[in-house]
């Protein structure tokens, strides 16, 4: 953060008023810490599942396979699970489109699509230390088939199986690292995967934003921004559509699309160059 800029008297008074108003406000930090840890564990667990699925997808799901994935990984820097303090490992076993994840040989999650279209598995995963039963939907034969494949899930955390009403599949592209990268001379980007965005700085300090969003938002995004008829630029292996405020809206891939947005000092040409240099991350 840079040094504060000079404020006029109104601004200084307002700044002082803000500080005065909240200086005695004290939150319940114990409760916040407990809630944040609980929610954070849940988020980490889901990311672990997503990483496992991605790794399994790379190998292929045509038969039974087992992958060992360090569960301490949380993005490029490899964060360690703050709650465990040790590097545990998750084993992923795939049957067709269904994955069973084990941690220390204990089943912790079942994810995936269908076994002969007879059942579906909830994407909502129960953490290992959570007694919430796994959700399934489908006919009894399909569920029985699943239990044949993975006998240990019959008594999941002692709670058995429940029937799910809905399957929610998060876009593959929304993971814990930036789905794109930039290698353009004069530009550098700071990525905030947790917020699905990056802040880029270009020549002479110009700024631009890169945001990735679910594909389901694309039509409404374009509609809201207003498209400039006939104006497109090459972007991410497809065409980037230029909107009325010079934002460039990229093509869809793996359930997401990327936008490149103008910031301080950018020109349409600089934005087009940045958009054209974006590449999908591996």
């Amino acid at each position: 953060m840079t040094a504060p800029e000079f404020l006029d008297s109104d601004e200084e008074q307002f700044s002082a008023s803000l500080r005065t108003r909240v200086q005695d406000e004290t939150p319940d930090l114990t409760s916040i810490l407990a809630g944040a840890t609980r929610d954070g564990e849940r988020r980490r667990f889901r990311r672990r599942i997503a990483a496992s699925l991605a790794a399994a997808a790379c190998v292929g799901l045509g038969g039974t396979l087992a992958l060992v994935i360090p569960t301490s990984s949380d993005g490029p820097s490899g964060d360690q699970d703050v709650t465990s303090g040790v590097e545990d490992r998750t084993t992923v076993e795939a049957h067709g489109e269904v994955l069973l994840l084990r941690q220390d040989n204990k089943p912790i999650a079942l994810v995936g699509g269908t076994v002969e279209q007879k059942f579906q598995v909830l994407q909502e995963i129960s953490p290992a230390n959570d007694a919430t039963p796994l959700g399934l939907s489908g006919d009894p034969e399909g569920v029985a088939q699943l239990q044949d494949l993975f006998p240990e899930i019959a008594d999941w955390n002692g709670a058995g199986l429940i029937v799910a009403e809905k399957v929610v599949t998060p876009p593959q592209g929304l993971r814990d690292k930036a789905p794109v990268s930039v290698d353009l001379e004069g530009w550098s980007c700071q990525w905030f995967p947790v917020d699905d965005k990056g802040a880029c700085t270009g020549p002479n300090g110009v700024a631009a934003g890169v945001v990735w969003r679910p594909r389901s938002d694309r039509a409404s995004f374009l509609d809201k921004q207003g498209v400039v008829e006939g104006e497109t630029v090459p972007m991410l292996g497809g065409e980037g559509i230029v909107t009325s405020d010079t934002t460039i809206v990229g093509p869809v891939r793996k359930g997401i699309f990327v936008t490149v947005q103008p910031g301080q000092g950018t020109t349409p040409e600089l934005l087009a160059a940045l958009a054209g240099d974006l590449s999908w991350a591996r």
Partner: protein
Amino acid sequence: MSTEDDFASFVHGTGAQLYRAALLLTGDHHQAEDLTQATFAKVFVSWRRVRRADNPVAYTRTILMNTFLSSKRLRRSSELTIDVGPDDVPVPGIDPDARLDLLDALAALRPDDRLVLVARYWEDRSVAETAHLLGISETAVRTRARRALARIRPHFTDTVTEGTPS
């Protein structure tokens, strides 16, 4: 110190200031706690990376702001060309002569205008940083700040001399 203790220490060391920013943004204690908790949950997920950052507190504040933006679904609107209105437009639904608690006056502003004020005058972010955060131009930041201040000025001018409102 274990990683867990390290995170807990960070929450206890920074939580109060973060919560105060959240309170200014949301105007409500429960929402502020929720926003603070959601922010720390995101930090928890990436704690190793966050604590290695040059300034973990600044990083966390940015997450708070972004989380607030996301919760208000401002991302898209903040990327649109700013519609700047006249400075003398009164805060909607507020008697211009009424003396208000500053939180209530802030809450009457548009969330994105509120965020500009909090970023500029609570967090002491520069115009450029605030513009970067919101994805708008520096001119838009200055205009929004001036307009928002003009709108709520009648409600806060005495708070410094009068002390903290009850």
